[in-house]
């Protein structure tokens, strides 16, 4: 009965789409409205608009523990399923390390890195902290009294916070970091001044920053971002650069044909106008890297993150 209905709904959607096939199963290992969520949905939007893959997709949101909860569910459910993919990113690598996850990226088939989303540091509008230097001073003075909210424990936001404390000369072990399952949660608690500082992607901060509900005081990338009136941390004298790249991985034991099919689709999507439009809309930078290159990048990235996480005491 349930399936009957699902097929009914599917039939409805198929009336509108030309090809007949199964929709993809897409896992977003983060809460609705966050970065992983967008990374799961928007490539499929672009592929549909460009006519590359038009069979639709079914999305599951499973946030928490650096994305390892979603990863575990993805791996448990989709052994050998050529139709299942998952959005992921830098945060997941740290999440796996810190959470000592029994399930790692080795259990999956990496496909592509697509974008990098510049991080930002924001404060409530009437905060005493107005510049990165103010923040550094506050962290040095009484770090416990400066709760910093961001994504899951061990994610890029957490790493950025730890590096920031280190650069400011504070005690990293006492960092008061509050993990949230999605960027939308960080933004609400920040605008409500429940936390003193928030770290998240620019795209998640932008709408409320424009509405004057929060204030962006710095960006965490190499360079300033067009349209955002805030310095990089480097400019402010704090030697911290963190990039939050995101990409797509395939189900465990995906067949070679399945892998090739998805790599083809993403290669075409990357060239499409629809994807370029999304990049601009979201304020994402293109960071396309596919196949084996992506696999070796993942290995390097895991080593690099492990080193940072160890140096700040998050991984033993």
């Amino acid at each position: 009965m349930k399936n009957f209905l699902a097929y009914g709904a599917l039939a409805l959607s198929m009336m509108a789409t030309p090809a007949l096939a199964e929709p993809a199963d897409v896992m977003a290992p983060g809460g609705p409205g966050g970065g992983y969520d967008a990374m799961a949905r928007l490539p499929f939007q672009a592929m549909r608009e460009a006519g590359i893959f038009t069979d639709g997709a079914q999305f599951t949101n499973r946030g928490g523990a650096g994305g390892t909860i979603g990863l575990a569910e993805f791996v448990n459910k989709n052994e050998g399923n050529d139709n299942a993919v998952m959005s992921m990113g830098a945060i997941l690598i740290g999440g796996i390390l810190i959470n000592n996850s029994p399930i790692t990226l080795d259990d999956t088939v990496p496909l592509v890195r697509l974008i990098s989303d510049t991080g930002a540091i924001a404060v409530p509008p009437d905060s005493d902290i107005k510049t990165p230097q103010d923040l550094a001073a506050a962290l040095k003075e009484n770090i416990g009294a400066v709760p910093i909210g961001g994504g899951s424990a061990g994610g890029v936001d957490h790493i950025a916070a730890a590096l920031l404390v280190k650069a400011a000369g504070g005690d990293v072990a006492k960092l008061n970091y509050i993990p949230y399952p999605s960027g939308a949660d960080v933004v609400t608690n920040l605008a409500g001044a429940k936390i003193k500082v928030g770290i998240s992607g620019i795209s998640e901060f932008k709408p409320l920053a424009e509405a004057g509900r929060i204030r962006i005081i710095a960006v965490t990338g190499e360079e300033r971002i067009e349209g955002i009136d805030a310095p990089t941390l480097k400019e402010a004298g704090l030697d911290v650069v963190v990039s939050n790249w995101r990409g797509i991985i395939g189900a465990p034991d995906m067949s070679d044909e399945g892998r090739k099919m998805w790599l083809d689709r993403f290669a075409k999507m990357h060239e499409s106008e629809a994807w370029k439009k999304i990049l601009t809309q979201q304020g994402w930078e293109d960071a396309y890297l596919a196949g084996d290159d992506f696999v070796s990048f993942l290995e390097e990235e895991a080593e690099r993150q492990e080193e940072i996480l160890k140096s700040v005491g998050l991984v033993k």
Partner: protein
Amino acid sequence: MEALTSLLGGFAVAIQPMNLMWAFVGTLLGTAIGVLPGIGPALTIALLLPVTSYIDATGAFIMFAGIFYGAMYGGSTTSILLNAPGESGSMMTALEGNKMAKNGRGAAALATAAVGSFVAGTIATIGLTFLAPPIAELAFIFGPEDYFALMILAFTSVAVVMGTSRVRGFISLFIGIALGTIGIDQATGIFRLTFGVRELADGVDLSVVLVSMFAIGETFYVASRYSKTPPAINPVAGGAWMTKDDWKRSWKPWIRGTFLGFPIGALPAGGSEIPTFLSYFMERKLSRKPEEFGHGAIEGVAGPEAANNASAAGVLVPLLTLGLPTSATAAIMLAAFQNYGLQPGPLLFINSGDLVWGLIASLYIGNIMLLILNLPLVGLWVRLLLIPRPYLYAGIIIFALVGIWGVSQSVVHLITMLAVGVLGYVMRVYDFPIAPVLIGLILGPMAEVQLRRALAIGQSDPLVLVSTPISATMIALAVAVFVVPLIMRRFQPGAPEPDDNPVMGDQR
């Protein structure tokens, strides 16, 4: 009244034949998925997202909103007639609604649910029209300590009022909270109580427990009592429709349910569960006939059902005004907005006024459609109870097993279903209320996250938990719910001991 002018403009958009058709398709589909367990509005809208490439934005959103509202309507039917709620928002409806159905008053229960949904949906939509910006501000006011206090209030009120004694209520609640701790810990990634079973890493699935506790446990119970039961009363006869007294007893719960559901639904961590729990509790406390609760009190259907629908309108508030999706369904709608190049938020009302007001106007129309669609069906649905019980319950078991298997294809889920079903049966036999188990399972993990967050922000000072007016008030209420009846008893020596109730019924 600028909003009124805009709304009239919106009606002009919504009343166009094409848009009326989309509203009809949406409400019909929504009602259908609400009746079925497991499949919800989020999944349905996700499946329909591709249509956004082919139909205009206004039509698509009118249809999506119809699905969303319709699902809230449909959920009550299986709860009332079969004691098998399909989603957590209609769980509380099952408690009194199913008792009413067993007393031959199923039609009245379905009617008060349908009319209550209409009243709540309409009032909440009026709230959305005129109060959206201030209500949206609640999202910023509520901090972790406030959410935690709200959940503690839900815990105590539910454990205290349900079942034959508060000891049983709390035992049920703690079983639920314990079930909720199974799985990877959200904050640290540590595996808890999984005993090496990889499938349990994701925790115990809520829909599995919901279906097993109610449908499977109920089936076992009916089967075990089958030969002993007297010939069933004709379930369709007698007070087939709402009586004058029913209307009198229903309208206040509808209104109260709406005022609980709408603002809580607008909170990022609000959802539909807390307002339905609180509404049930409130009606039980305010009722002139509290002794009827547990035996089919119409207030216990009217209030939670209204709260459930009002919370759905509440979810649209932060989505439309701030661009914040606070539920899976809202997140999918946000994705649909982005498909059209629209960014929900403060500017949406200015940039795409036609669409937003058309959408809001269609909510009013959709509500009327749902009422017209549902009321005549009441007579038809009730006939379901005329099916001989062995066939009916065999059907329910198949329905439940296939539903859960269809979603996960997981053997662990089927084993969990059986185990939880047996637990549900044992709890029925020994008179433990089953709703607190679900409440513990749903809210326990949420309460844990908010507690940790509040303590971290407050640097481990426990006083932070009562540091805001909202949290202090809620905690005080929670304590009062627990303590006041004890004190009252001291001063009324003749009053019966609530902890020592000798009545052994099949109360749940």
